[in-house]
């Protein structure tokens, strides 16, 4: 039987990927960040996952405004790296897990989460940066990845409650999969940041610290945060944190905090990294 062994909440700031790709991760700006996240890489390596379900958002690369699925699941055998406007990131292609992906599609839809099915799509920094943060620069990613996209670009995204319940449905579906697989779930994006308007550069460290605490002990409190509250208090792009709640829902009621790091700034953003053991 497949089971969820851990969860990772991770910001997907594109500049983190660029720093690694250009070999700038040792410079004074980035060194403190990359030194401090090392224990998360060790934790994940020890966990030896077979598959990751990676919850993220596409940034006008695989998807456009032509079609805007609220939830989309990638069932392909592999996913090429997107050209986001300056050439694709020099990272390994992402290998999918079609059997588990199709199992998720069937179970989630019958569990009333109407997933859009993607048989072919490129993946962008929203997916690859969290892999870089947690796995470094391997020749091939150490596990298979099932991309799960959430719309957070065209308002309104799904609510925090809805994302949390999706996570719970993912857990039910994974536990119903007959193969013996160790699964980790990533919730990506955040933390507080705003990339647009006269308020660009907005960061709310108190909001973020409280959110990190809630992810461990009281996610139900976090599901009560409204969209306007996210945008007002964590910046217009902080609303991405609903994707963290989808991951948290998949981990069950009780978790153990294995690693936490919070860093300001990564480019325009407050970056968080939280690793949770599923109990």
């Amino acid at each position, binding site marked *: 039987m497949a089971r969820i062994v851990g969860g990772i909440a991770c910001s997907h700031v594109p500049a983190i990927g660029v720093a690694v790709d250009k070999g700038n991760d040792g410079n004074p700006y980035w060194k403190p960040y990359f030194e401090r996240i090392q224990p998360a890489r060790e934790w994940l390596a020890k966990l030896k996952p077979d598959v990751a379900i990676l919850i993220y958002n596409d940034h006008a690369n695989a998807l456009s405004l032509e079609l805007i699925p609220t939830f989309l699941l990638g069932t392909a055998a592999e996913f090429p790296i997107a050209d986001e406007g300056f050439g694709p990131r020099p990272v390994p292609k992402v290998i999918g897990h079609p059997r588990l992906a199709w199992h998720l599609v069937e179970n989630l839809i019958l569990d009333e989460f109407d997933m859009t099915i993607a048989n072919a799509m490129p993946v962008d920094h929203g997916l690859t940066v969290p892999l870089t943060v947690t796995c470094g620069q391997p020749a091939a990613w150490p596990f298979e990845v099932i991309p799960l996209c959430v719309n957070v670009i065209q308002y309104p995204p799904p609510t925090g409650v809805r994302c949390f319940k999706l996570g719970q449905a993912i857990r039910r579906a994974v536990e119903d999969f007959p193969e013996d697989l160790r699964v980790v779930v990533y919730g990506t994006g955040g933390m507080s940041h705003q990339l*647009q308007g006269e308020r660009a550069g907005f960061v709310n460290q108190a909001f973020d610290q409280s959110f990190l605490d809630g992810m461990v002990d009281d996610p139900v409190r976090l599901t009560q945060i409204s969209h306007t509250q996210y945008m007002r208090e964590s910046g217009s792009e902080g609303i991405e944190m609903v994707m963290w709640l989808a991951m948290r829902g998949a981990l069950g009621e009780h978790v153990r905090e294995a690693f936490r790091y919070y860093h300001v700034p990564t480019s*325009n953003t407050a970056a968080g990294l939280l690793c949770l053991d599923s109990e």
Partner: protein
Amino acid sequence: MSAPRDYESIPGTYVYDAERGRVGYHLNMFCMSLNKPENRAAFKADEAAYLSRFTLTPEQKDAVLKRDWLGMLRVGGNIYYTIKIAFCDGLTFQDVAGMMCGMPKDEYAKMMLAGGRTPVGNLYKTTPRAGEKS
């Protein structure tokens, strides 16, 4: 029933909602076209000619040609799309963020290094923003 838009009281923020989605569609799809290298080359070769392939309003065309980043948001631009123009120009997200809030590049970078723009005075339009005269 129309959804409440209580987020309009957030200062300096352009939520890409249904209203902006309706007016901004073609502008943003032009931006998306710049994901392809051949389109980036065509745009750089003759910006106005390339823009004429898309059904943009005169205001939208003008904002693009002038690289008025804030103006683009006001006429329906979505930052994740308009940033493609900046990438095409060789600018970074941080360069554009600084321009949108009218801060010199160094000053913006310094603000971020010091912890970012503070929430104090920046949550509601009714209170003046930090550094702004009331």
